[in-house]
């Protein structure tokens, strides 16, 4: 099953490679991995999307906790949470596509951030699956380039990841 794991770690050089190294060394999947500083500049927050059986996920959480620089780990799938991913897509917007791309983007709540002569660049946020659906709705031949952040997540209500 797909899990979104959030963690806080010391903002030290090499912290990212400790996590990515752990996943490759133990053969765990990484669907996406996102890391950025937090409001506390001594901490980085990482969001990892992975998949595996319950046993594998349990081991991943334990192994992450075992890393000396990791301060706190939360499996967002243990409770209610919000998931968002940002995607920027460049699509062909020649005559035949222009209206269709606009219509589909509107449906998904996408924002056209650049209208060039032959291309549109669209920004879209949502749960990762929604971004997949958007891409599926477009004519494959029209998609020139996509870039995605990987999923971010946060617990709903009182569920927080903070030290």
């Amino acid at each position, binding site marked *: 099953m797909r899990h979104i794991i959030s963690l806080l770690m010391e903002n030290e050089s090499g912290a990212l490679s400790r996590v990515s190294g752990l996943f490759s060394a133990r053969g765990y999947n990484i669907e996406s991995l996102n890391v950025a500083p937090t409001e506390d500049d001594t901490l980085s927050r990482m969001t990892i999307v992975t998949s595996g059986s319950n046993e594998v996920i349990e081991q991943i959480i*334990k192994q992450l906790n075992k890393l000396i620089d990791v301060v706190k780990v939360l499996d967002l799938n243990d409770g209610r949470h919000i998931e968002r991913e940002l995607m920027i897509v460049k699509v062909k917007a020649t005559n035949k596509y222009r209206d269709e791309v606009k219509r589909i983007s509107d449906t998904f709540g996408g924002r056209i951030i650049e209208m060039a002569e032959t291309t549109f660049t669209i920004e879209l946020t949502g749960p990762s699956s929604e971004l997949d659906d958007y891409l599926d709705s477009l004519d494959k031949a029209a998609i020139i380039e996509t870039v995605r952040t990987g999923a971010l997540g946060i617990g709903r209500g009182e569920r927080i990841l903070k030290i």
Partner: protein
Amino acid sequence: MKPEIITGAEITIRSLQEENVEFVFGYPGGAVLNIYDAIHQQTEFKHVLVRHEQAAVHAADAFSRATGKVGVALVTSGPGATNAVTGIATAHMDSIPIVIISGQVPTHAIGSDAFQECDTVGITRPCVKHNFLVKDVNKIASTIKKAFFIASTGRPGPVLVDIPKDITAETAEFIYPKTIEMRSYKPVIKGHSGQISKAIDLLINAQKPMVYSGGGAVLGDAAKSLTKLVKKLDLPITNTLMGLGGFPASDENFLGMLGMHGTYQANMAMQECDVLLAVGARFDDRVISNPEHFLKNPKKIIHIDIDPASISKRVKIDIPIVGDVDLVLIDLLKAYQEVEKNHNKKLISPWMEKIKNWTDTDCMAYKDNGSVIKPQSVIQKLHEVTEGDAFITSDVGQHQMWAAQYYPFDKPRRWINSGGLGTMGVGLPYAMGCQLAFPESQVACVTGEASIQMCIQELSTCKQYNLPIKIITLNNRYMGMVRQWQEFFYGNRYAESYVDALPDFVKLAESYGHVGMKIEKSSDVEGALKEAFSPKLKERLVFMDFITDQTENVFPMIPSGKGLSEMILAKDE
């Protein structure tokens, strides 16, 4: 008083002194010259000059295994660090607390492919508990403090501190922190009381209970409380290869080692028990073999371990107890006192009877017609001659298994070997670490003619420091364990397992300034061992080259992937 202002190199040395380090095993080189200059001007700890960095780490590792203290190694950048990697990985697999200080090229040169530069922190990351690159002279002391703290607490392990050369030349105030607090690292040491009473309840109501203890019981200095608990509840117990000595081998409750080359009774009891208490052990592939087969006989498993990640890694655990093994065992004993009156020890009589029948198969018997030397008999004689009280180090292979099987250990920290990584070449540097730690004790290195050559250069170190190690080489002219697998599983095709062009070990030992002996007859084994351990040779390293049966195999054996009860026994051959 204002703190002194000293160089980074001096801070490094003073920090090691603050940690009460007795020995630093190392090898100098460009990037650590400042540190070596500071070592030259101090007398508080002894520097031991090895002949290869791998041996420096192994010796520091053995010092730790034998004493329980943190071992220290010092190596230079680039090749010094890469040579150390085998030693670091060996210590990591067996959870041995060591601190490795490595030199690095100057900070401005990092990343420029400078002479003797390598990404030491990157290369060692997967085989250390943690590592650091120190880029500020003001952080050397606190980093070394953290390194010792991390190495020796929780599940122990190696910690590497990489220090660029320019940082060791800069100066700073020397303030060594008294304590250290890390928000990201707080190992749990106290076991959960609810789990502890559940565990005792299971144990006293079991019909077929079994205890299995591993390296954690030895490293956690829990041998006393383990023995007390097992005797008090009167339970059968087995040790893993790493756990030998954690429970006295001569005790009647002891079933011998378990696992791939474990005893028939230990493996059968593990397979058929209904309640299993695992103490500082990790259910690895060489121990329980195939997990599905192991669980075919339903059992409730209680697992005490300092490392939460060891719990339910290969086998699902019913009652996990995370904590320091010794503290948890003491709590178990306390919890038992409250329910002792309800404990009917007769409940397990049929089980003990069954175990006795397994033991009666005498799985360790071997044929000895008195002509060619049987390797097992050399170990048994070694046990007699040393009165079972020596530090025994081993390399890796058949001789390692025979040492584990035929030298019963009654005390912890006496059996020093590479269980996890299985590193050939550790034996001699391991013996160095033990002998330096315990200069008055008997130290024997049980090895093979293949393994010993992987760190043979250390005979020179042994001469320099007058280490009177006794090297017991079981020389069968084969990489024995490789040959055994080739015989069993590869149709007797002995691909590259014959060690051709062996040196004359007697002359080799003599050329290093030691005593060499070649023993070819079974009848000479005891006499030779007695001579080697006699007062006459007390001060000398004796290299004993025992020419043993070329085709002897280690039994029992569980073929890889098979179940614990699917052993090949000597009598089946």
